[in-house]
């Protein structure tokens, strides 16, 4: 591409103007990256001129547990509930909390203690209890920053998952990943900058939505690219039968000549940008299969991730892919695992769910660490809300279900600038309300000026993720409909307590 072409320079100026006009600090490097090719940005690095402040993390891997994992059965140890098995949840605990339409009609809300054993794991703080359902994750407790006091306002899946992923309960906003793509651009010329994977689950009970990795009103090239285990790894990646790589090269040579002729006639710089994209597509056709080809992985890798990791589409395989993507400079990776919505048969379902994810999670942390990448990779694990202390449906010691619970749930982070091995926040004896150190319920009512120490609203989580990647959540904005929108709306506080 001829960078000295006057029309192209014009266009560049224009793009810069838009950037500075539209995003308050001119972070939106991505629009530039698309135009210029990433080579020009490579020198800037993650903490380069594109970011608001030096980034702690170069990339994020978000392990999203869709449906609402039960903090009661995985992370939040509440021995006192055992004594109250089956008794009605005291009124003062619920304190007017609204209940979903599914349990609102129940005559009682019987206290439902977990049936699983918890073991205290040493960490660099007060220790952390981990359920027997997560034996592998327990082994990396010293690397995790476990937050028991995450909360949201939404009580149903669609609004809640839309809320945590886009900052609004009503569809229409860009996703977290799209914001990151807009803010960070890509550092790999041969792979997409924002990759989304859907891992298999035996209980795919809740739906996902394109909007969760969609671009909303941001330019649509910021939408997540699905990396699939079925068919082409990336949609339409492979040439049709009968067309070789050499054939495609010949096609592209002709196409480039046609486009250059078009450019000669119209001098529109978009034409040049499109030629670059065709070339990148051509490179992706080898870089993606190379990425997906695990034959070069050692036996120890599969010991770490488990044999499951050899089966494309499993959570373990997705985690391995995430590591391989991270190695190749992809900065924005999300794995969605469905099936955590355990209303009726929680033990059966969660046992299977945990088996799906446990080893992969731990392996990812260990693997990143042994490769010296954990420090610069933020790993996040969590769902859209927690689950109730009371049982939905029939309660026995062996089987029970739990409804949605927004007031507290557990999220963990690791690497990329968060303190390793800490346990943050706590809940009351019923795992119902966020509580202070003495167990007294806190009722956080955050607004833009007020944050309650010891709590983490989902906007705070998102603000913190952006912060670690070098982005000020208040400044990464995009003007749409006359308003400078941002991921955290008018909310969000960076969780400095969690940062190195």
């Amino acid at each position, binding site marked *: 591409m001829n960078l000295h072409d*006057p*029309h192209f320079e*014009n*266009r560049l100026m224009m793009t810069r103007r838009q950037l500075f006009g539209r995003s*308050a600090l001119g972070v939106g490097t991505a629009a530039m990256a*698309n135009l210029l090719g990433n080579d020009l940005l490579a020198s800037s690095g993650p903490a380069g001129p594109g970011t608001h402040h030096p980034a702690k993390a170069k990339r994020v891997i978000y392990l999203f547990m869709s449906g609402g994992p039960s903090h009661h059965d995985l992370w939040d140890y509440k021995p006192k509930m055992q004594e109250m098995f089956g008794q009605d949840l005291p009124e003062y605990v619920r304190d007017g909390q*609204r209940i*979903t*339409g*599914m349990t609102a009609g129940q005559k009682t809300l019987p206290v439902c203690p977990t049936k699983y054993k918890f073991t205290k794991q040493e960490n660099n703080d007060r220790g952390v209890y981990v359920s027997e359902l997560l034996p592998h994750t327990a082994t990396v407790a010293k690397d995790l920053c476990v937050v028991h006091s995450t909360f949201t306002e939404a009580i*149903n899946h*669609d609004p809640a998952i839309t809320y945590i992923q886009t900052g609004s309960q*009503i*569809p*229409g906003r860009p996703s977290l990943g799209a914001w990151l793509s807009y803010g960070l651009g890509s550092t790999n010329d041969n792979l*997409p900058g924002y990759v989304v994977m859907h891992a298999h689950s035996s209980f795919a009970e809740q*739906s*996902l*939505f*394109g*909007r969760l990795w*969609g*671009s909303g009103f941001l*330019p*649509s*090239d910021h939408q997540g*690219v699905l990396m699939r285990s*079925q*068919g*082409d790894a*990336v*949609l*339409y*990646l492979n*040439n*049709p*039968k*009968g067309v070789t790589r050499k*054939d*495609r090269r010949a*096609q592209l*040579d*002709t196409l480039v000549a*046609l486009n250059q*002729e*078009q450019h000669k006639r*119209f*001098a*529109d710089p978009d034409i040049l940008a*499109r030629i670059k*994209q065709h070339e*990148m*597509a051509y490179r992706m*056709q080898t870089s993606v299969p190379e990425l997906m080809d695990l034959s070069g992985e050692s036996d120890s890798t599969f010991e770490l991730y488990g044999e499951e990791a050899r089966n494309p589409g499993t959570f373990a395989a997705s985690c391995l892919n995430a590591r391989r993507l991270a190695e190749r400079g992809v900065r924005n990776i999300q794995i969605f695992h469905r099936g955590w919505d355990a*209303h009726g048969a929680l033990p059966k379902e969660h046992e299977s769910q945990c088996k799906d994810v446990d080893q992969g999670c731990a392996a990812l942390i260990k693997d990143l660490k042994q490769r010296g990448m954990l420090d610069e990779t933020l790993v996040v694990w969590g769902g859209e809300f927690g689950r109730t202390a009371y049982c939905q449906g029939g309660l026995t010691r062996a089987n029970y279900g739990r409804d949605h619970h927004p007031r507290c749930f557990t999220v963990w982070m690791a690497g990329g600038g968060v303190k390793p091995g800490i346990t943050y926040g706590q809940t009351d004896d019923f795992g119902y309300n966020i509580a202070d150190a003495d167990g007294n319920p806190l009722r956080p009512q955050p607004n833009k000026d007020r944050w309650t120490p010891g709590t983490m609203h989902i906007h705070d989580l998102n603000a913190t993720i952006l912060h670690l990647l070098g982005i000020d959540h208040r*400044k990464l904005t995009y*003007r749409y*409909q*006359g*308003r400078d929108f941002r991921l955290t709306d008018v909310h969000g506080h960076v969780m400095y307590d969690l940062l190195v």
Partner: protein
Amino acid sequence: MALLAISILISHTAFAAERLDFSREILPILSDKCFVCHGPDAKEKELRLDSFEAATGDRGGYRAIDPDKPEASEVLVRIHDKEDPMPPVDAEKQLTDVERLMLEKWVKQGGNYAKHWAFIPPVKATSQKSVDGYVSAALEKKNSNLAPEADRATLARRAGFILTGLPPEPEQLEHFLADKSNGAYEKFVDAMLDSPRYGEHQARYWLDAVRYGDTHGLHLDNRRGIYPYRDWVIQALNDNLPLDDFITWQLAGDLLPNPTLAQQVATGFVRMNPTTSEGGALPQEFQAKNNFDRTETLGTVFLGLTMSCARCHTHKYDPIVHNEYYSLLAFFNSTAEKPLDGNKYDYGPALKAPKDHTAWNAWEAAHQEALELLKPLGDEAKPWRERLINLSKQESQPKANELATRLTDLEADFTTTLVARELEKPRPTKLLLRGEYNQPTGDALEPNVPAVMGALPPEAPKNRLGLAQWLTSRAHPLVSRVLINRVWQRVFGDGLVRTPEDFGVQGEQPTHPELLDWLAVELQESGWDLKHMLRLMVTSQTFKQESAWRKDIEDPENRLFSRGPSFRLDAEVLRDLALWASELLDPHMGGEGVKPYQPSGLWSALAHPASNTKKYERDQTELLYRRSLYVYWKRTSPHPMMTLFDAPNRESSCVRRSRSSTSLQSLALFNETQRLEMGRKLAERLLREGSNDTERLDLLFTLLASRNPTATERNACDSLINAMRERFQSDAESAQALVSVGEAPRNEALDLTDLATWTQVATTVLASDVALLLY
């Protein structure tokens, strides 16, 4: 550099002798930098800077703006105050040096206020009388003028795409090129406007705006009965239904006296918000959310204003008060559907309507015949149907009997479509504190419109019909501007206001304010005649300019419209173009959304196990080749060939699509099943109609570019032809594999090597900017 920029700006604006234009030069600064605290939503007792009265009020011995002693104005002191500046040091947005100077000059000129331009009804300026007049006048100020006219073939292609979403047929093109008479182009344009393809193409823009989808959109995202609404939109546009009626029927067709079937079907607009029936969802919560969605969509589509701010508090920027939002919302709060959709296809109120264009025509014909037959008999107070049945019972009336039977037969084949109905007893609407559904407060609010945009017409009922009357009244400052701006955008690639979704204080200023107003008034004066407006635009010299970037003027974003329109065509157009060129396009109009090829597993990877849109069942036969606006729209997972090329998901209103260029698009253009099938069928056509490579390339370029290839293009294609021919001659298996993609049967009479070779060529040219761009 910065200093230089400032001094240039100053010399142009702030220190120039003429008075500042408050609305265009000062209000945007106040709005962007000051209104967060000092705007319509300011705290009580806090200074407000959004009106002259407030800004000049006595604040205990001093005034923010002192028109008598401008130098003493507190505003001036504070914006220059190093110790205690405004905006405060920690404010997210700071004033620039230029803005400080502008404010200073404005205050010294007396600090006069004026209404934001978009809230003042448009009037036609007298300076110019045509599109070209206004555009040329602006160019002349830059010592420039319009670019030369594009060649006629390019023009024909351009007008074809803009009006019908397809290029002209080769015969049409040939005829037009041969017609040297005056008015040949106008005749050509009229033919495009009369084509049934016109309504289909124009409908797409509307369907984006109203967020049309074939599914409910939330949670299970089940199927929804609504496509007769889409077919009505197409028909209304083809019939050139005046836009004021177009709006009225959609908002309130059910409230018109003796509404026709079409008028009721049109109210599907009111039902277009995404809905849910998630297990735990609370009715009261979704009654509120559904209404938010409709109110805010009304804001985007008709008012070009963001209403969502006022959901939680008085608007920070535009003069829309918190309770005005809820008064506007009240128009929608009394529709009869339940707040939760029950995951049902016929989430009522619904009625039955014809299932495609042919069925509409047949029913409409029978209906008209019935009306003719009944006309001489009077008694028009009774519904026509009842009268027809009564008449058909008389033995002397075989015609009535035949008609009644025919209508019954036609109606047996009708399909469900969601419509709006009003509750007998309206639901009370209250302001919701911070937009929380469970925090209603104060007295019930009457349906009403925001005061800054005028008032409901005196006779207007306080329901959706009154709302429509207000929107379509001549006094409305926004609707005609907002609509015509989007028409301009689809013709010229960008609007006169480049934020078509926001005409408020924070939106962009029009590039050609007088032209925008002239067009807005022309739209009203023409009887809201969309075809007239489109004709006026595409026959302008501005439209006819060459679209090449010019070296003699600095206009990268074409804000001066110093060159003709040029942009990458939309997702639907790209597919339709290839279907058309390959003669696969099925002209059937209307009907249930179609499901062309789609990689397997896309829906099941997302969908709830109980969803009835979990499995994508691909269509067979000609349904694969319908125009793209008929492609089934599952809102949580629209077809990838749509979203990869920037189509919105239709969960929320979209009045401007992005135009991205990505590597994924390249992969799709070369490897997607339908692209390959279309490439092959196009190759068959070229082989059939051209007897040698030269003729075939000529035809290929004529179809896609309305011209023959240049020598360079011919060389580029020849080298591909030669390479592919050589390759496929020695590898019949590959050739066979390539030409076997897609359901359309292969023309066995054609030589395999030739067909495979030309499939590669056609696919490549279809993927190139020769085909991808409007120019």
